[in-house]
């Protein structure tokens, strides 16, 4: 990674310790950014001091709303109109960015500061070719003599090879939609590195990618940063990724920096309590081998969900695409089965077939022993009383114009259950079940936090007395601490109501915590199934091993000791440590 990691020892008398590189490239002093919204102002960044040395890789970690993105955007000058810097300064080398004119900033962006954005899918102009978007940087910053098309083209090809893109000549003529997410992110990295900037802002560069792709992208990224001596400010919510790739970690909470130290020091002993909690949640858990098992312990012979030889073909124009290929598994009542795999592996298609939202091409689906493969429309409607979906993104899965109580009560209304009074009583009961204060009943989704919204979605799924929930990436949009809380809620509900969960996720860390059994999918095939401890501790397929190796958090795992030993010590039960974990 970077060679010269500055090690200035922190002043022992300070609780919050700041790193001061000897020759800082970037210096942020007393930065304060406020958002104006309908006359009121909120402070997103509140008196930040930060220095980044040349060639240094610094991770900026925090939950959403901690101000990390606002800080990153201030540095590269991409704050939205509603945001305003009210105090402090930012300097890059000798240039004061806060007093520079727009014209000068345009010369600095792209040349001295680069950006690798969060969402590769939407970060390239969809109607321009890859080639023109790569060449654009050179055209924007001509630097002296006008260069020929040929010279620019050679540079662009060299860049594509640098980030490991195959068939570069052909890629130049392609449009973004013809490239996969990983390739798009490589193109964006190539764009960011094209003029070899001094500083790169990487804003959650891999959070939209699969773990295996993420690992490869981060490797390219690190290699180039080392090669060009580029300093990187790596913004992420994922402490596991941060500890694996950065030399130094800066933790932000509510607009302030609460910790700023080399990774090794933080891992050894976090100073700040908040950092400690983040670390705890991001680390692999020693499963408490308590008696959660007992709740539904009577021997249940009929599985809640069983699929046999499930297959789904999609027909494009002329071409067949087998999304799910001969998948068979069973999920015992009251347990959690997780399907993991990269995007496109067929896990969501499988879930949608089980939900009977999609008809299988072949195979059988049995719910509590009953064959529902060819269920009629009215039968399906009955089915959905006991089988419900909690969708990935609570923001778009809740009608923004309805109040929380109406959202939760809607299924009752759809199925004409009870009188008005009975329905409101049921809504109140559901709110309590998902630990939402009754005061929220009249609020609209936008007024809630992400975690609260997901609780509303869970309550709605339970409204008709569902016994089986399909959770499709239900925690992916949440911060790690919120995730932990929702996981704890899911575990409690499972215990109290004897729920069965089919959990779809690409996040192996969460899967390991919640699952009884795990199935690994790849290109439509179920490559491996087994108890969680076995899959994570002793996988039988090569693909599972690759997947596990790509899972970020190597240093965290090393910190919390031998994971496999711990996993083997406790037989498969979903153990969840709540926030109160030591």
């Amino acid at each position, binding site marked *: 990674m970077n060679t010269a990691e500055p090690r200035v020892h922190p002043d022992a008398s300070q609780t919050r310790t700041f790193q001061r590189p000897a020759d800082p490239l970037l210096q942020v002093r007393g930065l304060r950014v406020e958002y104006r919204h309908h006359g009121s102002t909120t402070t997103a960044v509140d008196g930040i001091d930060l220095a980044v040395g040349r060639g240094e890789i610094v991770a900026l970690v925090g939950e959403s709303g901690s101000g990390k993105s606002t800080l990153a955007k201030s540095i*590269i*000058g*991409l704050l939205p109109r509603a945001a305003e810097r009210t105090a402090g300064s930012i300097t890059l080398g000798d240039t004061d960015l806060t007093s520079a004119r727009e014209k000068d900033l*345009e*010369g*600095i*962006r*792209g*040349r001295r*500061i*680069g*950006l690798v*954005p*969060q*969402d590769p899918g*939407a*970060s*390239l*102009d*969809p*109607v*321009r070719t890859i080639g023109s978007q790569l060449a*654009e*940087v050179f055209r*924007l*910053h001509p630097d002296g003599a006008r260069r020929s098309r040929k010279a620019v083209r050679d540079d662009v090809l060299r860049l594509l090879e640098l980030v490991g893109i195959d068939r570069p000549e052909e890629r130049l003529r392609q*449009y973004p*939609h*013809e490239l996969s997410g990983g390739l798009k992110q490589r193109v*964006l990295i190539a*764009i*960011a590195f094209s003029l070899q900037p001094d500083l790169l*802002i990487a804003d959650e560069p891999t959070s939209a990618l699969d773990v295996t792709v993420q690992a490869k992208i981060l490797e390219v990224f690190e290699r180039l940063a080392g090669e060009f001596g580029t300093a990187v400010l790596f913004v992420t919510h994922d402490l596991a990724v941060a500890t694996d790739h950065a030399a130094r970690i800066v933790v932000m909470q509510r607009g302030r920096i609460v910790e700023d130290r080399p990774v090794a020091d933080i891992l050894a002993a976090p100073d700040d309590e908040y950092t400690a909690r983040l670390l705890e949640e991001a680390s692999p858990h020693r499963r408490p081998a308590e008696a959660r098992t007992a709740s539904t312990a009577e021997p249940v012979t009929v599985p809640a969900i069983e699929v046999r030889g499930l297959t789904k073909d999609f027909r*494009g*124009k002329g071409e067949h695409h087998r999304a799910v290929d001969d998948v068979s598994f069973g999920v015992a009542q009251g347990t959690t089965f997780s399907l993991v795999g990269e995007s496109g592996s067929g896990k969501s298609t499988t879930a949608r077939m089980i939900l009977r939202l999609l008809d299988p091409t072949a195979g059988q689906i049995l719910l509590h022993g009953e064959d529902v493969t060819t269920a009629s429309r009215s039968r399906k409607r009955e089915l959905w009383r006991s089988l419900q979906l909690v969708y990935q993104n609570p923001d778009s899965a809740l009608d923004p114009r309805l109040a929380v109580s109406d959202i939760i009560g809607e299924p009752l209304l759809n199925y004409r259950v009870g009188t008005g009074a009975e329905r409101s009583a049921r809504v109140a009961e559901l709110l309590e079940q998902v630990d939402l204060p009754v005061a929220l009943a009249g609020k609209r989704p936008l007024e809630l936090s992400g975690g609260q919204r997901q609780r509303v979605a869970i309550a709605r799924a339970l409204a008709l007395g569902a016994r089986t929930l399909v959770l499709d990436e239900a925690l992916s949009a949440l911060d790690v601490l919120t995730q932990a809380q929702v996981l704890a809620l899911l575990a409690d509900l499972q215990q109290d109501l004897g729920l069965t969960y089919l959990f779809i996720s690409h996040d192996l860390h969460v899967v390991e915590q919640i699952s009884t059994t795990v199935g690994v999918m790849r290109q439509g095939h179920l490559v491996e199934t087994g108890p969680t401890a076995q899959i994570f501790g002793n996988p039988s397929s090569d693909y599972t091993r690759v997947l596990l190796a790509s899972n970020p958090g190597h240093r965290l795992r090393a910190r919390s000791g031998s994971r496999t030993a711990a996993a083997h010590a406790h037989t498969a039960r979903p153990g969840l440590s709540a926030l109160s974990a030591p």
Partner: protein
Amino acid sequence: MARYLVQRIGQALLVVWLAYTLVFLAVQLLPSDPVTIFLTVDSAVDQAAIDTMKSQYGYDQPLVVQYLHQLAGLFSGDFGYSLASGQSVRDRISGVAGSTVALAGSAFVTAVVIAVLLVAAATLTRSGVVRRVLVNLPPLFSAIPVFWLGLVLLELLSIRWGVMSLFPDGSFLSLAVPVLVLAIIVSAPLAQVLLKSVSHVYDQPFIDVLRAKGASRSWIFFRHALKNAAGPALTITGITVGTLFAGSVITETVFARSGLGSVVLQAVTTQDVPLVQGLVLLTATVFVVVNLVVDLLYPLLDPRILKSNGQGAPRALTA
């Protein structure tokens, strides 16, 4: 691409055929045949004259024969004969169509220029006040009646200030003023849709990436945002053909220009059914052709259109 082309052209032909059939059926719903209606507008005429004229124009044939005969005529460019002048409908229309095409064409180009300039100014200005004023112009434009604006301009330019002749005399102003009047009403929906889709484009992350590359605001607008936002505006363009045609009729009447407007007026007032029929078909055909061109232009603007052909909607065009 070839398949897409054939598909779209086939659809276009189908629409023209349906339009013809609908017009034919509508004529049959009239209380009596076109000749009788035409001849009895002002006074009673003797039955013999009506019958002679009916057989001349073929209205004594069975309906199926009339339908097929007229349909066959369409393909050879024969739209029948005007009852009022005895001229062929084709000659009657083509004689004046040039003037209307010149007016409508110039007005359309002007409208596009007005819309793009307005949206560019509204997007690129740093002043909130200027932006708010510009954003509110299109609704104002569409609220101004064409004939009112035309009359006001005539009153000011010709009668008060005397800089423009009341009748078309070939001078620059006598073409420019009607063009502007028509362009203003046509530019309103274009600008509104373009504004909306441009602001949608600006919400997308790739704009941030462009800024991070060091692109200036006008670079981003003209080289990226405009092309991304053009889709929905192009769709509206196809639909404005109707406004354009209706507007031309009014504008021509106000400014006493010869053109399709006067022909439409005459055809309707004299109840010259074959001529009306021809005009309706012409309008339908123009409408279909323009929309066909719009559809064929789409893939040039957005490469995702052809890819997703037949497999659900393309990933949001921006709408």
